[in-house]
């Protein structure tokens, strides 16, 4: 048996792990079908885990040329990969749900509290103004308030 064989499942597993994590931000977050639930990324991670497990078995096999070095490298790569997967899953399924309940937020049928805030030109704008001022000559029929986290 070739004792110098490359532990390809381990390295492909690592690449898939990184690819699975970054592709969400770069690609899948822009696609409606994969945006709200990252099933494509979870699938990539599943394949990565299978390869990583195969890579661990290979790295810990007795026929390695330098068994100790192989075990160390295999352990580090596998641990790093599993940490990335765990962090991804934690961020997407746990951290993203850390939101206040907002029980006191205006509900359907209630009056929206009036406010006055500065727009990007420095002008003070109130909700009642937004509800009454025409848009390009026609009166609005509704106002959509979008609260967002900022820092973009």
């Amino acid at each position, binding site marked *: 048996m070739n004792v110098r064989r490359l532990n390809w499942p381990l390295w492909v597993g690592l690449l898939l792990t990184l690819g699975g994590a970054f592709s969400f931000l770069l690609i899948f977050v822009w696609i*409606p079908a994969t*945006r*709200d639930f990252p099933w494509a990324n979870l699938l990539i991670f599943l394949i990565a885990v299978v390869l990583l497990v195969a890579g661990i078995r290979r790295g810990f096999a007795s026929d390695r040329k330098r068994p100790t070095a192989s075990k160390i490298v295999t352990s580090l790569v596998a641990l790093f990969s599993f940490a990335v997967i765990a962090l991804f899953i934690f961020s*997407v399924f746990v951290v*993203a*749900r*850390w*939101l*206040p309940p*907002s*029980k*006191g*937020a*205006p*509900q*359907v*049928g*209630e*009056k*929206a*509290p*009036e*406010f006055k*805030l*500065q*727009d*990007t*030109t*420095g002008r003070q*704008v109130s*909700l*009642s103004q*937004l*509800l*009454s001022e025409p*848009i*390009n000559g*026609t*009166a*609005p*029929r*509704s*106002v*959509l*308030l*979008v*609260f*967002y*986290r*900022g*820092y*973009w």
Partner: protein
Amino acid sequence: MKEAGVRPVAISIDSPEESRNLAQGQGYTFTILSDPNAEVIRRYDLVHAGAGEKGNDIARPAEFLIDLSGTVRWVNLTENYMVRARPEQVLEAAKSIK
């Protein structure tokens, strides 16, 4: 949105300058309002305490559709900040407002 008579208004703690840069960079033409001290955000009970870049209070994502009488007609308070309201949902809700 324009055809449906919906006026979109975005609100965050960003300063008018930051919002202006955002609007220019992205080509946004809708109104963007600044609530640097999260006063209105607090009045709407949307404060996400300490979640800002410097541990400051910011708004949790939330969308409200308000008719001309000032009454809330549709609300979206997401439980997951990765999942936001989609334009189709808003337009569907806007249809019921004459």
